[in-house]
């Protein structure tokens, strides 16, 4: 009954939204890409989470008609989609830009094989690196693989172009890349949605000349790629996605993706535009026409001069790089400054009083206990720590400083292995090398990384911080979490069993919130001259808990609150040094309490991990049954804003 009521109320809210939007829907680029895939009749979609791509698959998972999934990594997501395409259905893979580095292997050859059901790869690039380690320009992959490239500039185009891309893929027998950037993925605008079509599933007919790329067959396919590219060039000339918006004849602007919006903001009607939505191959006749209409042309593109190089090769003059920087976003202020040399008046502020607010490990984060003890150990014993990509990368910061370098997803153990061998050669035998990665990263590419250590053996310490989820991107399920993207139960792949089956002899599975256990395990690992695997096993405090979690970790999991007994607090700041955002020192009005004139306080984000209590020398920090009850078992720690 309650459920029906809730459903009714939900429908009412939906109705209101429709009224406000006049039957359109406010969607982010990611949501619109997912909607486009739905409308295009996609039946199979696979992804690995990564900002700014994550919400594409999260949105797709809501459609019952589609098999949506989190793959262990991006290469596998692409391969699975390729296989689904071969099997005859429309299939999609989505990922952040660096994910395509992995997926490049199947992409390069699948470009030869071509499709049966349409196949689309969505690459979400990050000019400006809002939450990425590099700003590689993945348009290059389309050129590299000789496949078509679509670049939507807003949410409506995201939806429309996905549909177009699937038709295109099937018509020209090729995988297609759609490249979007953070500002397209995370900007919201109104979208007119349509109905889902359900194209008939194509019959699978064995055809090894096409699908089995041994050299003799590949040589034939290689020629077909060149033929195909000529046909794509014809399409590029006539598609409605590439068009001229004539206005001023003195200045012309060529741009694609979000850059066209940024450019229009600056030039307005003082320029004519060649708006490109389909950018590989470029429409050479249309370019010629555009050049005949204007006196000079700006090519505005983020990152690499990819269109610029192409256009210059045709013999046209381009104002592009280096007038526009080869890095960062081409936001209107950047364009304005590059073109006109001026900037809007900006008020300077006193940088000295500005305190930065870097992201940090949440209250109750299970990585805290481990990093706290590792930092203590590393201060006593020369240690180099290879990190990896996830929430735990934040272990590089204060107060832990427990990370020396990070290369890429899954690199921690293999890179640590290399460093250790280098240290051996350098006679630096007293340095311990530690690799640290999370559970999702372990399943991503970390298993191979561990195999490197076990196979080519040395005494690296390999730490898997298992928080039972994919934390950094917003608590997505993974092969070890026991649920899939649709929150159905799956067999959870036990990391300890995997590690042991790979041949690891020294394996310790510990509770990272038990500092003594962490300390003793590290001591043992440092003293062992063989590969040593430590698995810390405690869930992320923000993860949606299931029955299994309460069974395994206790009914009071994250339902406890601690408090400071002020009379016992000596103001020593030992608790502050664990780096928990729930703890602070209060100085005002507390002069009489102790010599230091300050006492600790714990705020409502506390979830009772107990770490601060373990470091308190006077037992001033205690479990509070009263506060815990007051909270009715629910932590005040809010989900990150994005998930509200």
């Amino acid at each position, binding site marked *: 009954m309650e459920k029906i009521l809730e459903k009714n109320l939900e429908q009412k809210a939906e109705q209101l939204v429709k009224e406000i939007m006049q039957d359109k829907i406010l969607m982010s680029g990611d949501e619109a890409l997912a909607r486009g895939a739905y409308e295009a009749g996609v039946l199979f979609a696979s992804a690995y989470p990564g900002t700014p791509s994550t919400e594409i698959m999260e949105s797709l998972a809501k459609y019952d008609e589609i098999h949506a999934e989190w793959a262990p990594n991006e290469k596998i997501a692409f391969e699975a989609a390729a296989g689904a395409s071969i099997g005859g259905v429309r299939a999609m893979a989505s990922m952040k830009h660096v994910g395509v580095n992995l997926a490049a292997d199947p992409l390069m050859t699948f470009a030869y094989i071509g499709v049966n059901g349409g196949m689309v790869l969505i690459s979400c690039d990050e000019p400006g690196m809002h939450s990425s380690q590099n700003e590689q320009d993945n348009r290059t992959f389309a050129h590299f693989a000789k496949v078509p490239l679509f670049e939507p500039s807003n949410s409506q185009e995201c939806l429309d172009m996905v549909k177009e891309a699937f038709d295109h893929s099937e018509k020209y027998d090729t995988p297609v890349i759609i490249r979007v950037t953070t500002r397209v993925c995370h900007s919201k605008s109104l979208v007119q949605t349509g109905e889902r079509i359900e194209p008939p599933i194509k019959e699978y007919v064995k055809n090894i000349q096409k699908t089995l790329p041994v050299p003799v067959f590949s040589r034939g396919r290689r020629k077909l790629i060149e033929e195909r590219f000529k046909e794509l060039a014809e399409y590029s000339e006539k598609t409605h996605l590439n068009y001229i918006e004539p206005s001023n004849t003195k200045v012309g602007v060529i741009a694609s993706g979000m850059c066209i919006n940024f450019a229009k903001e600056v030039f307005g009607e003082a320029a004519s535009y060649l708006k490109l939505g389909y950018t590989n191959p470029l429409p050479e006749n249309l370019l010629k026409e555009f050049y005949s209409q204007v006196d000079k042309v700006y090519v505005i593109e983020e990152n690499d001069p990819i269109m610029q190089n192409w256009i210059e090769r045709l013999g046209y003059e381009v104002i592009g790089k280096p007038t526009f920087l080869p890095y960062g976003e081409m936001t209107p202020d950047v364009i304005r400054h590059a073109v006109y040399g001026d900037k809007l008046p900006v008020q300077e502020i006193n940088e000295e009083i500005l305190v930065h607010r870097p992201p940090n490990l949440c209250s109750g984060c299970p990585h805290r206990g481990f990093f706290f003890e590792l930092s203590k150990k590393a201060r006593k014993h020369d240690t180099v720590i290879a990190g990896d990509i996830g929430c735990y990368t934040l272990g590089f910061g204060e107060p832990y400083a427990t990370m020396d370098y990070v290369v890429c997803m899954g690199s921690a153990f293999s890179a640590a292995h290399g460093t250790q061998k280098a240290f051996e050669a350098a006679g630096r035998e007293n340095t311990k090398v530690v690799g640290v990665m999370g559970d999702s990263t372990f399943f991503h590419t970390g298993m191979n990384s561990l195999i490197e250590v076990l196979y080519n053996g040395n005494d690296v310490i390999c730490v898997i911080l298992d928080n039972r989820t994919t934390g950094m991107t917003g608590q997505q399920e993974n092969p070890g979490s026991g649920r899939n993207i649709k929150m159905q139960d799956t067999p959870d792949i036990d990391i300890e069993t995997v590690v042991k089956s790979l041949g690891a002899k020294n394996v310790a599975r510990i509770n990272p919130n038990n500092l003594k256990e962490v300390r003793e395990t590290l001591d043992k690992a440092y003293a062992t001259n063989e590969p040593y695997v430590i698995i810390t096993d405690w869930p992320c405090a923000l993860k949606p808990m299931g029955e299994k979690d309460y069974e395994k970790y206790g009914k009071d999991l994250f339902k406890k609150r601690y408090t400071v007994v002020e009379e016992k607090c000596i103001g020593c700041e030992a608790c*502050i040094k664990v780096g928990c955002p729930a703890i602070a020192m209060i100085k005002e009005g507390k002069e009489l309490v102790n010599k230091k004139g300050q006492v600790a306080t714990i705020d409502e984000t506390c979830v009772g991990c107990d770490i601060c209590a373990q470091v308190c020398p006077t037992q001033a920090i205690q479990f509070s049954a009263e506060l815990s009850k007051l909270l009715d078992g629910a932590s005040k720690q809010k989900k990150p804003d994005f998930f509200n």
Partner: protein
Amino acid sequence: MDDTKNILLVGVGGQGTLLASKLLTYGLMQAGYDVKMSEIHGMSQRGGDVSAHIRYGKKVHSSVIEKGSGDLLISFEQMEAYRWVPFMREDGTVIVNNQAIHPVAVLSGKANYHEDIIGELSKKINTKVLDARKEAEDLGNPRGTNMVLVGAAVKLLNLLNIDWKKAIAANVKPQFVEPNMKTFERGLSLV
């Protein structure tokens, strides 16, 4: 393009910044404006800073507000307000929630949180300080800080002709519409 207004909403992860920006967007759309909204999150999820850009007018191209062009800055936290001043026009306005959330560097004693950020802010720009959290708590809705700020913003932007209740009802569960309206109206009355 010249009629385009630029609103920045900034705060700390978990403060309800993005819901506030969604509400404003819905209201502005109701009024028939072309609206573009853009969010930056990602690493900002872990207690870092969060920002949303809203641009509205007859025809809006870019979803991103450039430095020196902000008309209204709605800040959920003092330091965040100060951080975003360079994005504001000289004659722009800041609505700031009178709350200081200490970054970890301050908590661990490695940095000082300036004792008079509001004073520094006022030197730079037209500043309206609201005890939004306290006002919301007074109304028995401690999570309504964002609504108080939205209410104040609506008043300052002179957007009173819009059916804001409808925008709220489209975004929150029915049982929360009234409490949110109350805090919203409190915000209206504060500026």
